């Protein structure tokens, strides 16, 4: 009945790691689109649009991700919708990532000095043009470290999706640990897989920061456009 930890198990874990990576990628893609929307709404001129963005972020940040996963999976079922685990997890992680990325990015936008916005308005730039040419180029760099920090967290938080029957890396680790009774070896392997997913993210972040350059840049230089 019991097995020794072997390459079969490592393969099983690798397969689950792919699911972890896939869920992370989906959450990243959906979260990036949603986050842009939230950040854009947050700095909008219309009061109710700003209020909606703030309300959304407050609700998502103010409730545990675990509860959101439960609502997306079991809650939807009670409402008569049969949502498969992958879809429920993707939905919950998309909303969650959208709220946090939106909050990070509106912070970066607001960190661009007020004078820059005013000067751009004085030059007669329309709002979208001003954002594109003046504000965004200056907001990108300070946004990178917290964004990557959040993405790494996101990858690790996908472990929570196991609660709704999504077999990702951590759940696969539990299953293997319980058939091999070698938790140390199993979870060290699990940690290595997480590291393989997360480390390139951190590395890419540092590269990106270096490429965009240090210090304040000239917003109108061709390099940043």
């Amino acid at each position, binding site marked *: *009945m019991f097995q020794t930890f072997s390459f079969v198990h490592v393969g099983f874990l690798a397969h689950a790691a792919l699911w972890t990576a896939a869920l992370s990628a989906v959450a990243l893609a959906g979260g990036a689109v949603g986050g842009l929307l939230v950040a854009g709404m947050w700095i909008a001129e219309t009061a109710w649009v700003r209020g909606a963005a703030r*309300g959304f972020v407050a609700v998502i940040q103010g409730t545990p991700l675990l509860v959101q996963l439960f609502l997306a999976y079991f809650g939807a079922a009670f409402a008569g919708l049969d949502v498969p685990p992958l879809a429920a997890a993707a939905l919950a992680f998309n909303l969650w990532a959208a709220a946090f990325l939106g909050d990070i990015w509106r912070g970066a936008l607001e960190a661009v000095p007020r004078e820059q916005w005013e000067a751009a308005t004085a030059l007669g730039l329309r709002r979208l043009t001003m954002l594109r040419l003046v504000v965004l180029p200056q907001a990108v760099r300070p946004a990178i470290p917290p964004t990557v920090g959040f993405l790494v967290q996101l990858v690790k938080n996908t472990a929570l999706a196991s609660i709704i029957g999504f077999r990702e890396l951590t759940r696969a680790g*539990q299953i*293997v640990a319980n058939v091999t009774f070698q938790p140390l070896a199993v979870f060290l392997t699990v940690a290595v897989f997480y590291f393989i997913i997360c480390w390139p993210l951190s590395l890419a972040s540092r590269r990106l920061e270096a490429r965009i350059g240090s210090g304040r840049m000239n917003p109108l230089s061709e390099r940043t456009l």
Partner: protein
Amino acid sequence: MTVSRRLAFGAAALPLALSAAREARAQTAAPSALDAAIKRGSLIVGTSLSSPPFGIVDANMQPDGYDVGIAKLLARELGVKPDIQDIVASNRIPSLTSGKVDIVISSFSITAERAKAIAFTNCVYVDQQVMLGPKSVQITGIEDLKGKIIGVTRSTTNDIAVTRHAPEGTQIQRYDDDAATNQAILAGQVQGMVTSAGGAYAIREHNPTLETKFIVSEAPMGIGLRHGDADLLHWLNTTLFMLWTNKEIQPLQQKWMGGANTDLPRYS
């Protein structure tokens, strides 16, 4: 201010809306999960695959264990394929009530409290809840738990048993899944754990430094299904009775638990 008040109202209204939706669904006489399974060609069974020896994976990483064996027998009798869904212990009832699975066979101890939310079939196994601990730790009875750290899986009958019987001063450490509880005792983070006799047998097989200290209580286990599905309940009880009579359940118990029950108590 108004925004936050509106949010608070929305948050409070959500569970109400959900339960209203559930009631609306319950009233439109749902077809039996039995017919649904036959039509679908598969029986969807919720089982935790990290609960040896009830639910584990085999050398090919396919579902295996006592509960999976029962699920396969039932699917065979129904003439459909077994579709084993891995669920964690704390989601056994939500998985049923939300309609995610047809039945739950997952070391599911029968309790009056649980029976308020879901229905149980007759027993598939009568387990004992035992205290498992390292040979080096002196524990002979429930009083000895005082001052000790005891691991248990949250919201299981093991949890209920140790919470009810342990003396004051016992540190009960609750984990979310059998996987975590088993790891805690193997890693020496707890000085004892309460688990099923079957589970203790599985762990002892692997780690001879552990021994069963004493029996905490008895735990008859059944198959969980949704309330109000008389057809499925009756079919399951009938089939369990026939499988037991034809001596198909006993070898499974022998294989996975190291011994078979002399009889399975029946209440219908």
